[in-house]
């Protein structure tokens, strides 16, 4: 691991900025900063969003897992529970369909001049995040740990080796792409 590099704060801020530029560039070129494209996905008419995400997953996974084997990177799994992951993602999903952008694509959409993403979207997300800081003590105490399943990976859930899980996921996603293209999506 490049520990020394990770600890240099200024360099890291600069790296964050540069990687963000690439991130925004790819999102905009992939058209997922467009309201119509995202709504097309949620209405199951246009599969651009799913194609972008699944390709990023396959390509990302096929780099990160070998790098992890070489000891160059470490994973950052997030803990999960029904109370936090399921409830939170459903609330997010409802908001996603109303806004038509997610946090990252809303910021990207502002960059391409979509003002509904700025005045409705980004402002709303900031208010929502502030609202969560108010109810956080309640959620942390009563909801967050309901049905806790922790920081597990899929290979641990299905009891298969890491290599098999990575290759299995790759084949699954590739097969899904082939089906999408065959059915003309």
């Amino acid at each position, binding site marked *: 691991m490049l520990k020394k590099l990770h600890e240099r704060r200024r360099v890291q801020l600069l790296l964050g900025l540069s990687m963000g530029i690439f991130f*925004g560039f*790819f999102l905009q070129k992939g058209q997922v900063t467009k309201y119509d494209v995202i*709504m097309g996905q949620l209405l199951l008419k246009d599969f651009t969003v799913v194609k972008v995400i699944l390709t990023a997953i396959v390509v990302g996974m096929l*780099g990160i897992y070998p790098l992890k084997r070489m000891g160059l*990177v470490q994973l950052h799994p*997030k803990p999960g529970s029904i109370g936090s992951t399921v409830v939170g993602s*459903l609330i997010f999903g409802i908001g996603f369909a109303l806004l038509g952008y997610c*946090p990252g694509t809303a910021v990207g959409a502002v960059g391409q001049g979509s003002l509904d993403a700025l005045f409705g979207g980004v402002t709303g997300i900031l208010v929502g995040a502030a609202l969560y800081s108010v109810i956080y003590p309640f959620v942390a105490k009563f909801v967050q740990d309901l049905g806790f399943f922790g920081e597990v990976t899929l290979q641990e859930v299905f009891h298969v080796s890491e290599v098999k899980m990575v290759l299995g996921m790759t*084949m699954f996603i*590739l097969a899904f792409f082939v089906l999408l293209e065959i059915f003309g999506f």
Partner: protein
Amino acid sequence: MRFCEKFSLRRLKCLWLTVLLALLGWFLAADMLAQTEPEQFQNTSSAASGLLAMKSWSPYLAGAGIGILSWFAFLLSDHPLGVSTAFAKTSGMIEKAVRGDRTLEKKYYQRFEPGIDWEWMLVVGLLLGAFLSAGLSGDFVLTFTSGVWADRFGDGVAWRWLTAFVGGVLIGLGARWANGCTSGHALSGTMQLVASSWVAAAGIFAGGVVTALLIF
């Protein structure tokens, strides 16, 4: 075939994988050719600058770019790509500017200390990158409302912004509740094969599809 033996895969599985990869390559090539119209290259000196000036890329190409970017994020910064924590930190910074240091007494801001960090800079970069991409392709247009919305609910800007705001609030709330958003969970978490992230991705998609079908 020797490559497969390294991972001790059976021959049949290896064959499957090869066929699938070949098919995907074929689809990708066909897709890119179909989306790349010759006119787009007319006023540009090289294919590379033509690529930068294109309004849209094949979703597979854009996705692959994001995937490769993730390698560098993990390798150089020990950080997955994520966006929503930066929103929480920005809210914290705004609240701190208004209410002062009392803000930091909040339990949530003790866990996510308001301030500028790698992820915050990533979001600033994201804005610049999208602006750059749109600017290079002539895709930068100031719009007050969006296509499908206007077709269904009319041109009224107030309604669109109000709905967008309500959606935004739910997104901000839900993203922090679930501990991640479409980037942190559905992109970075899933590629690490984290169970909670696949659950979150399914929840986001399910909630989004049902709501979209109900309102449209």
